[in-house]
């Protein structure tokens, strides 16, 4: 009896599916959205005090990624905006899932005015840019700074800040926080043991031997997110072979991953795997777990960006005094000096093209980029911003002040790469998988680079992905 019922149910479900198919056109409107959504935008009159032409009483909606930086800093920025435009109603919300929350609103043509598109659940930038979903922020760069007299917003930004958010010559994404990527260690541990951070690769290996002999693992890494280890490998290669190494990778040039510099770097890094310098079990730890092992002093080095200090706050022992250092030089023939370090603007903010208050959105970003707004951010979340000099006079925690020092030592030798912004999948999935196998010892350096190249070729040959090129 029950069996017949079940079969009957399946049969009827199939029949319902057939009947429902012709209705698909009607129903599809739900997810695919309407094409004729011509929303009017709020526009005010441009003047010296209102260079972006904001309509004073137009409401502004801001959506913040509630991650490592939290959302309190944004509330302060919103209060500053409100101070200037008391008649505007500012709507604030924060989420960890930007893509899932906002994707339907982008389709609908009713996105918020400012989005902090960050975190693991961010909306793919390639998708946003190629579909023309982002408003041009060029006007913002040429507007006068809110509180630095005689300078435009562009003048107040650190070098590289504009390039990172530029796609095909248009500035579409404001990356607000300035992040330094390097190798982190505890100065307390090093002072106690009398160790000195090594400036060349050979010295680094010798130091690793000493550290291992002292009963501490020289290295650990974010095993379940092994892409963190691609950063020092690429950085070492860039310092060895020059900035073209990164340029070619970003531009998906053929065999960019198999350049001589990348080979030299991969060969060098293979040493820490071969010689057993990695904390046993690292490959099975996620980023929090492995960084916690490092904070507990079980491992000496970890590769990370300058958010590390904030992320590890709860588990860092007092007096740990973490510091960041550049990757060791491979040898005398390196094109860049040891001090060269990767610094880049991160934490992306966008103004959707279909937002009703695009002008207000640009003005909000101008508020964030004011000296006051930037300083407040640095104080609240212990991170640098892309506004130059905004951290002056702010009491910085140990790790961050080491990052500031490293940046100034690096000076004009600083470098960066952006392929992960152009092609999220290439870093998050393909290079990530290759790093996992390489640093767990399953494959050697040649296979590692082969796999990375295979991933890049796959992106290059996928016609559905829009390609970007950047100059030097």
């Amino acid at each position, binding site marked *: 009896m029950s069996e017949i019922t079940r079969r009957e149910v399946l049969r009827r479900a199939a029949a319902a599916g057939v009947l429902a198919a012709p209705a698909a056109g009607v*129903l599809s409107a739900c997810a695919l959205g309407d094409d004729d959504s011509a929303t009017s935008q709020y526009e005010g009159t441009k003047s010296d005090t209102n260079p972006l032409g904001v309509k004073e009483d137009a409401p502004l909606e801001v959506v913040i990624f509630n991650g490592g930086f939290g959302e309190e800093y944004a509330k302060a920025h919103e209060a500053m905006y409100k101070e200037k435009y008391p008649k505007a109603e500012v709507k604030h919300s924060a989420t960890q899932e930007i893509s899932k929350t906002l994707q339907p609103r*982008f389709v609908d043509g009713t996105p918020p005015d400012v989005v902090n598109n960050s975190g693991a659940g961010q909306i*793919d930038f390639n998708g*946003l840019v190629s579909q023309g979903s982002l408003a041009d922020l060029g006007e913002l760069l040429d507007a006068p700074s809110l509180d630095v007299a005689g300078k435009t917003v562009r003048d107040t930004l650190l070098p590289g800040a504009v390039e990172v958010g530029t796609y095909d010559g248009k500035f579409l994404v404001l990356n607000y926080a300035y992040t330094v990527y390097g190798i982190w260690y505890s100065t307390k541990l090093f002072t106690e043991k009398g160790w000195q951070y090594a400036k060349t690769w050979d010295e680094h290996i010798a130091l690793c031997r000493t550290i291992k002999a002292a009963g501490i693992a020289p290295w650990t890494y974010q095993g379940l997110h092994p892409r963190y280890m691609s950063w020092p490998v690429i950085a070492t290669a860039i310092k060895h072979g020059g900035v073209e190494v990164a340029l070619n990778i970003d531009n998906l040039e053929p065999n960019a991953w198999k350049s001589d510099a990348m080979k030299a770097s991969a060969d060098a890094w293979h040493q820490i795997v071969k010689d057993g310098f990695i904390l046993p079990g690292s*490959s099975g730890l996620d980023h929090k777990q492995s960084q916690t092992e490092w904070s507990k002093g079980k491992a000496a080095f970890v590769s990370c960006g300058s958010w590390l200090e904030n992320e590890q706050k709860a588990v860092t022992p007092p007096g740990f005094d973490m510091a960041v250092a550049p990757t060791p030089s491979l040898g005398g023939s390196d094109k860049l000096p040891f001090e060269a370090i990767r610094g880049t603007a991160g934490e992306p903010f966008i103004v959707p093209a279909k937002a009703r208050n695009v002008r207000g959105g640009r003005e909000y970003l101008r508020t964030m980029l004011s000296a006051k707004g930037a300083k407040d951010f640095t104080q609240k979340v212990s991170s640098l911003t892309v506004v130059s000099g905004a951290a002056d006079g702010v009491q910085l925690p140990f790790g961050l002040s080491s990052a500031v020092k490293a940046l100034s030592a690096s000076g004009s030798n600083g470098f960066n790469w952006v392929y992960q912004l152009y092609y999220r999948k290439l870093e998050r999935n393909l290079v990530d998988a290759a790093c996992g196998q390489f640093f767990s010892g399953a494959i050697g350096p040649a296979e590692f680079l082969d796999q990375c190249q295979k991933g890049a070729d796959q992106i290059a040959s996928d016609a559905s992905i829009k390609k970007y090129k950047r100059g030097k």
Partner: protein
Amino acid sequence: MTGRALRHGRYRLLVTFLVPPLLLYGYFVLSPYVQMFVIAATDWRGLSPSYEIVGLDNFRQLLRDQYVLDALRHNLVLLLLLPVITIALGLFFASMLNVGGRGKVAGVRGSGAYKVVYFFPQVISIAVIGVLWKQLYNPRSGLLNGFLEAVGLDGLARPWLGDPTYAFWAVMAVMVWANVGFYVVLFGAAMQSVPRDVYEAALLDGAGRLATLWRVTIPLLWDSVQVAWVYLAILALDGFALVQIMTNGGPSFATDVAGLRIYETAFGEAKFGYASAIGVALFFVTLSIAVLALRATRRERIEF
């Protein structure tokens, strides 16, 4: 009141109770399915209302996409093993708890406590289970390696979720763990409804525990086993939540499943058209397996 009026009232009652759920079902279940078929034929990228109809291009691409095929292969391995292991363990535990005692037809000693313990995983949300087991598998401070080292089996300690050889099996073990409790209860309830004298007769005839299970319990419980099989098969074709929390498909895609591929393709790469095509493929796989499972397990029912 005439019979006709009564019948009329009954229909009104039926309609009142049936229409709201059917509407909800249509709106939240059927309509997304139908939309999925439409979207699968487009190159929709999910952030603007513009899209092109590309016909079957997405499906052609799918057949050549090594990552999707690998993910589907993992689902098929789960499909073969998850129901067998879970049902076998479920039947074993249920019969020990209900008819495993010797001398009289009852469970083994302490079966009351076991029944509660087995059901624990069922009341924990899947997200908690994922996080919990991630910690258990932690190679440095996790219970599993800790236990292995404590009993002198250091050689068996592994980085579990970090090792492509073991990660998949580690995740599958959690799926079994999370589900077996429910089937212990399901089979247990079915065993309770089997008349005691059948078991008493088996006992008198000198049937051991295994013979009782194989020759008495399983044939009488065939209906429940069949239902369990279909449920577990559908579960094996999903697996998204646990995988996403525990490994996110890694290391090196060793634990990737079709559900995660859909999610990554849609929300990670903003390719909603292609993601829907994977969804359509998965839909047909699930449907055919459900039908096959029901056909293959059809047997004559034993009345008791």
